[in-house]
């Protein structure tokens, strides 16, 4: 245990030294010192998380890393959907509710919402995806609105081949769908009587790759690695990169939230800070999310 900490400390020092050599002396040294200071503290207790399936993989990874760092802390992560996350944390059943949207947007009862605190822990980008046979690489926001509201029904109307468009939606309660409506549809009504509905990112991915002419939207974290038979489409000429999101060229993204009730306990606070930290950022990025360090 002790030797591990020493090793970590050494590694941190080494990193700081290397980075200092790159000429960004002040900033990185500060970061290194802060990291070292934090390692002095130790936490214990149990933390339960539940909610958003979009955030779940990241939360699990963070839990494992955090428990390795502080073996006295035990963390469990469950899915269930953003609604479950808000419900459970409001009821006090879990310490952290994971959600794709701020608690206030889900709750009708605003007095309940005031007890809950939203913490932005990462960004998540979404992509418009189509079946591989669609010969379109770029869509304007207007074109996407027209497709999902049922005005455009054939790919040739947006410069593609003569093929019927098959729209695949997420259910109206889904967080991904909410982000899609907020950032892309912008008040234009999604026509739920066209196309089909799949209830998870995975099911959408499967349906897109097997249905010719299909179009839908999925979280980038589901598009890590080689995907057969489906491709992402640029929105207004912009690819879903961190750079484009930061410069506001790419609109289709949102924050992921960890919601706590009232003042969070020390270990809960530490865990949320850890998810947002510089230390955990590379993992966040590797898993297809956007670290908070790159968004602020």
């Amino acid at each position: 245990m002790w030797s591990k900490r020493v090793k970590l400390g050494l590694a941190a020092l080494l990193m700081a030294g290397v980075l200092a050599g790159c000429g960004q002396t002040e900033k990185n040294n500060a970061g290194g010192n802060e990291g070292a200071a934090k390692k002095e503290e130790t936490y214990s207790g149990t933390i339960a998380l539940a909610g958003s399936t979009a955030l779940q993989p990241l939360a699990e990874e963070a839990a494992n890393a955090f428990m390795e760092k502080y073996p006295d802390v035990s963390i469990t992560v469950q899915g269930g959907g953003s609604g479950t996350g808000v419900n459970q944390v409001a009821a006090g059943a879990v310490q952290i509710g994971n959600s794709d949207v701020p608690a206030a947007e889900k709750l009708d009862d605003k007095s309940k919402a005031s007890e809950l605190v939203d913490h932005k822990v990462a960004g998540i980008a979404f992509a418009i995806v189509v079946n591989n046979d669609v010969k379109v690489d770029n869509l304007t926001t207007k074109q996407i609105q027209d497709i999902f509201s049922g005005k455009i029904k054939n790919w040739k109307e947006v410069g593609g081949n003569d093929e019927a468009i098959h729209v695949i939606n997420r259910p109206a309660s889904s967080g991904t769908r909410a982000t899609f409506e907020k950032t892309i549809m912008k008040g234009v009504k999604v026509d739920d009587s066209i196309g089909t509905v799949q209830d998870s990112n995975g099911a959408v991915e499967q349906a897109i790759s097997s249905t010719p002419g299909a179009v839908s939207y999925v979280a980038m974290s589901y598009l890590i690695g080689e995907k057969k038979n489906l491709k992402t489409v640029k929105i207004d000429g912009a690819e879903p990169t961190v750079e484009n999101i930061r410069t506001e060229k790419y609109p289709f993204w949102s924050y992921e939230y960890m919601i706590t009730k009232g003042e969070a306990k020390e270990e809960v606070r530490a865990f949320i800070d850890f998810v947002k930290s510089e230390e955990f950022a590379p993992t966040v990025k590797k898993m297809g999310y956007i670290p908070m360090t790159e968004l602020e």
Partner: protein
Amino acid sequence: MQQMHTKRRNRWLEEYIGRTFAVISGWLIVLITVTMIIFLAVKGIQSFTDSGLSLSDMLLSAQWDPNGTPPKYGALIFIVGSMLVSLGALLISAPIALALAIFMNFIAPKWFVSLLKPVLELLVGIPSVVYGWLGVTILVPLLREWFGGSGFSLLAGIIVLSMMILPTITSIAADALANVPMAYMEASYGLGSTRWQAISRVIVPAAKAGIATGVVLGLARAFGEALAVQMVIGNTIKLPSGLDSPTATLTSVLTMDMANTINGTPWNNALWTLALILLLISFFFIAVIRLVGPRKER
């Protein structure tokens, strides 16, 4: 003396521990069921008491748009969708199941029956997610090739469901046929009937209560099935325009939206009401079984 005492104690244990456990189990299951029904009823009527939705709108309107302004909670699409997919499955399954039951009882050689029975049991044991998965990967692309469109459709749901309820109906119908006294068969032979005449005009009518029970049980299972149907039916919020058109069912909208809505919101309450409707329809089926089922011998 000491030995006697322990013996008596053992007997007491045997007599009462087992009995107590049995009684507790009996009451527990009644308690759980009643609590669940009460819970569902209380939750289900909140749509009308707390959220101010109207029952007639809910049952008769096909406008389901909980995110809209104003939100609309008409569940007609789901009720119709559930009805169509279950009845459709029954239409395919019931005749095949009856034929299978006749085949097993009167036509097939013994060795084949001993093959058929475990096969049917296996069919019951396959989890619904597997049926759904096979439906998505094999059936849906096939239907897409034949009928165009996306392949996710009412027909896909009907076919998957009919596979799932076939063994249920078959085994109950087969039992019902087997329970018809041999004397009936012999009597009709005695009157000069052929084997098929005896089966179709004497045995099957004599077993019709048991067969009907199997059919209603199959219908109830089809109605409550969620996962497999949800995977292949497309879940589009519209009344189906044909067999090749996607639609949604009570169970599919429940599984899709339940986890993402918040307790106490009208949307969540409306979903509880859908669950209550589902339960009431199941009760209706159970009542039907009680009515048509074989009467106890007096």
